[in-house]
């Protein structure tokens, strides 16, 4: 197959996977781990790049190419390092527990958990422009706050489910071992989140 055919094929696989993550996450994750292709990562990358561009425009709030590029690169480095560190934590913890682990499979599975994250960040960036904070305690302000929290919590449960499925299928881990892997990874990811916060890249961790 030529490059275009491969890209189209990966694009279709990516679209099917995203629809599957919404409607049938369990089956879809089984498929990602067994049949997923590295080419699908390109489309996750494109999705993230669209977000980085929007966030850079919102944060810099001026058409200054140098500052926009700088912000874009900082966000990209933050996300790439976060994904890489998360994958390494899972792989190392899995190997410590003597489980069969493939870095590529875990990386692909974990990358798909970035979809709820990027959706939340995307929506938050848009809302920052449309309804800039601070929120007030008026009826309208409280109603918006409640809706925003329900939206955030819904995406959070989705993220938790996909993260759990990454461990369940990626490591073939039972609930107990999955919990141990999560507990081993938590301090490292907390340190990364603190660093990102201090560096002013992400106040809410992009994991």
């Amino acid at each position, binding site marked *: 197959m030529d490059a275009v055919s491969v890209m189209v094929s990966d694009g279709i696989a990516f679209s099917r996977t995203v629809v599957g993550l919404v409607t049938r996450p369990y089956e879809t994750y089984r498929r990602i781990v067994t049949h997923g292709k590295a080419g699908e990562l390109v489309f996750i990358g494109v999705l993230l790049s669209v977000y980085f561009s929007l966030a850079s425009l*919102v944060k810099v709030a001026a058409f200054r190419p140098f500052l926009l590029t700088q912000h874009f690169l900082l966000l990209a480095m933050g996300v790439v390092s976060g994904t890489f560190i998360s994958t390494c934590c899972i792989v190392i913890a899995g190997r410590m527990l003597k489980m069969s682990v493939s870095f590529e499979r875990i990386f692909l599975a974990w990358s798909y958990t970035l979809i709820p994250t990027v959706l939340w960040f995307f929506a938050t960036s848009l809302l920052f422009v449309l309804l800039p904070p601070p929120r007030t305690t008026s009826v309208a302000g409280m109603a918006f706050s409640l809706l925003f929290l329900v939206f955030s919590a819904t995406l959070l449960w989705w993220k938790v489910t996909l993260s759990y499925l990454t461990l369940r299928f990626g490591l073939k881990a039972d*609930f107990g071992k999955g919990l141990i892997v999560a507990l081993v990874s938590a301090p490292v990811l907390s340190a990364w989140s603190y660093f990102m916060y201090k560096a002013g890249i992400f106040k809410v961790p992009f994991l």
Partner: protein
Amino acid sequence: MADLTYQKFVRRWEEVTDIPPQTLGPLTTLYKTVTRRIKTMPWPWYVGISIVAVLILFGLLGQGIARLVTILQAGF
């Protein structure tokens, strides 16, 4: 045709039994109940649990949720 169907079934069976069934002692039933809900179209459950969680948070923080949302909105 029957062979093809059988082969498909075997492939599917091997895929499904690739990871052992989850048991959690006395919590197994609860685990199975929760996971059954999130295997297919989990959104009504996600939204329902989120609404309950946010209402509890509202009960605890009251108007403080406006401050929480202000912090979250600036968190990207």
